[in-house]
């Protein structure tokens, strides 16, 4: 009996000592992003989201100081991301891996997270399969099927569109978007009358738009990467007279980013997009977030990357609070499963089965609000899960 008590006391002391010790050393988060190269802007926006969270919530949680270690992949290089993750774990001794703007980065780092047992917070990479690559991955951004499957259903059930044409960029995300939209649309009862794929780097859409025009569908669904393409396709649509209300134009939110809207001008009016984050959404939490973000970034407005980084940090902070500073991957991922919170984007939670994000999908239409083009929310679809998980 005495021996047992002694053991318990010693164990207890040991535990107390170990938590006291861990309370003093900083908690390191290794952030892997394409800080240089063609995706640097996305990385900077995401980083600004992380920084804003730290600036507004302090860099201490559960008695531990948060230290961010940044690493650059230079682009979608899986091997570099893997090496950086390895080094962060074995050399820098990070407790959590985070960031990942691009799917290949997340795929590269996933085996390291699985082997080292570290929580890995995916703050952007939007391919379904990412979270299935390691049991320690949690995603706080969005998935392409999540947005577009619900959008496809909505297009037939609510908007009453019977026939649609799809026009997507010929690469992974484009194929995913096409498949998800078509599936949602046809399962609801609509018909896809035609589909075309445009080269990823193609500034001239006129031939493709002409084909759509010839098919004369009720609606056309478009997916192109951000950057210069939204404006180019907007112009091509206007030139060929393919515009609402005669033909409905559907797209994923990137097409009508504030920057893209500026260059598209009037031609953007009436375009309907699906997205998880709407800058203009009037909500106290969002207004506060946008104000703080623009103040901290020389007037630059937050976008999907910013919100992914911001919510990713929120998840890390809340998980650490729940585990009382225990940063082991198992404890943190348990704490993250099922976690729900109010984000500037709206309500969101983590599906305990897939560790993927569940959130409201907003359907927005470009309208003229006091002389300014804005994404105005016309419909909300709450609690949307990624439809592909568990299906293959």
């Amino acid at each position, binding site marked *: 009996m005495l021996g047992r008590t002694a053991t318990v006391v010693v164990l207890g002391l040991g535990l107390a000592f170990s938590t006291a010790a861990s309370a003093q050393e900083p908690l390191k988060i290794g952030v892997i992003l394409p800080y240089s190269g063609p995706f640097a802007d996305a990385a900077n926006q995401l980083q600004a989201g992380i920084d804003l969270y730290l600036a507004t919530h302090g860099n201490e949680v559960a008695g531990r100081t948060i230290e961010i270690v940044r690493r650059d992949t230079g682009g979608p290089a899986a091997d570099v991301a893997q090496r950086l993750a390895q080094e962060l774990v074995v050399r820098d001794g990070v407790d959590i891996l985070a960031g990942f703007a691009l799917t290949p980065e997340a795929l590269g780092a996933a085996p390291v997270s699985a082997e080292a047992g570290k929580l890995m917070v995916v703050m952007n990479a939007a391919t379904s399969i990412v979270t299935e690559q390691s049991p320690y991955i949690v995603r706080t951004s969005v998935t392409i099927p999540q947005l577009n499957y619900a959008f496809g259903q909505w297009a037939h059930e609510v908007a009453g569109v019977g026939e649609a044409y799809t026009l997507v960029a*010929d690469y992974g995300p484009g194929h995913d978007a096409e498949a998800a939209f078509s599936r949602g649309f046809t399962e609801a009862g609509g018909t896809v009358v035609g589909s075309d794929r445009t080269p990823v780097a193609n500034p001239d859409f006129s031939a493709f738009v002409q084909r759509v025009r010839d098919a004369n569908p009720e609606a056309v669904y478009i997916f192109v990467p951000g950057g210069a393409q939204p404006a180019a396709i907007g112009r091509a649509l206007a030139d060929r007279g393919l515009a609402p209300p005669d033909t409905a134009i559907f797209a994923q939110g990137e097409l009508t980013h504030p920057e893209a809207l500026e260059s598209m001008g009037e031609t953007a009016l009436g375009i309907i997009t699906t997205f998880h984050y709407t800058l203009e959404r009037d909500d106290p939490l969002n207004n506060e977030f946008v104000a703080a973000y623009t103040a901290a970034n020389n007037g630059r407005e937050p976008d999907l990357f910013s919100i992914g980084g911001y919510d990713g940090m929120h998840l890390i902070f809340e998980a650490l609070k729940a585990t009382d500073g225990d940063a082991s991957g198992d404890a943190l991922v348990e704490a993250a499963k099922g976690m729900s919170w109010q984000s500037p984007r709206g309500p969101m939670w983590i599906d305990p089965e897939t560790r993927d994000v569940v959130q409201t999908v907003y359907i927005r239409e470009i309208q003229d609000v006091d002389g300014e083009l804005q994404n105005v929310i016309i419909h909300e679809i709450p609690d949307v899960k990624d439809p592909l998980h568990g299906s293959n």
Partner: protein
Amino acid sequence: MSATDPTTGTTDPKIWMRRQGRWSAFEILAWLAALTPFFLFPTYLPLANQIAIAALFAISVDLILGYAGIVTLGHAMFFGLGAYFAGIISVYGWGEPITGLLMAGAFAGLIGFIASFLITRVQHLALIMVTLGLGFLTLELANAMSWLTGGTDGLRGMNRWPVFGQFRFDLWGYTSYTYSLIVLFICFLLSRRLVNSSFGLALRGVRENVKRMPAIGSDHKWHLRKIYTISAAIAGLAGALMAQTTNVVTLDALSFQRSADVVVMLILGGTGRLYGAILGAFIFLMARDQLAGVNPQYWYFGIGILLMLVVLFMPKGILGFLSGLVSRRGK
């Protein structure tokens, strides 16, 4: 070093060539230095592995660019083919690393042999354009064949077996670096033998004056085809090493960036010298690692400055500059 010029020197060419192939103390030291990460910097093993792979790739490009004068901006094509080949056979159930590596190298070599017929038809600017075009074509092909390659998402489901059924690829990178270093060393020995042979001399002849080679009875096209095939095979081996040690292949393996980076490495280290390729890979990746650690956004700025300084003040690369210093001191 009295009989260094084989055209005017009095030494018997065979003796001269043997002397060229002799190992110097510097070389032995350099290879011993390659072992230090195991003992002194075990946390840098993943980086050392990446350097070894980049060095192997740089050697493959040096063989054609530095020795045979084939300027290429699309050699990532063979790197990527090797990587995808090794990756795809492991997805379809053959994860044995060494045979996988050899098959990947052979596959890249075969494609290289086919491509070499096109390569030897053109020169100068057209050559750059053809290699560039082949690189882009392969990239687009891999993108389009996403059912096989996984497209932009990258290849999934790779399953590599332990080396010799014994050594698992560990998180620290011990197995990876050992494996890559051994492959690098073997390929280096082969390349070294090659460039110090009469075949190597013929290649240098092609580089210096392609019109004179037929005049002295040398079948320069066949030489070029041979070296291009060998180079493609070595690049394929490097790609396969990357696939096997990281267990992941994405389109980035075929990217223009990779083709361009390797040329930058060669220019930094010094073309036409095998050690220049290794030193260039080392400097490029170390500089990248250190500069990116300081500033993840603008590290390429540092590389750019380094490249300009090297090109302006050391036109033969860092190694060429150093060996120039040594031989001047020796006089």
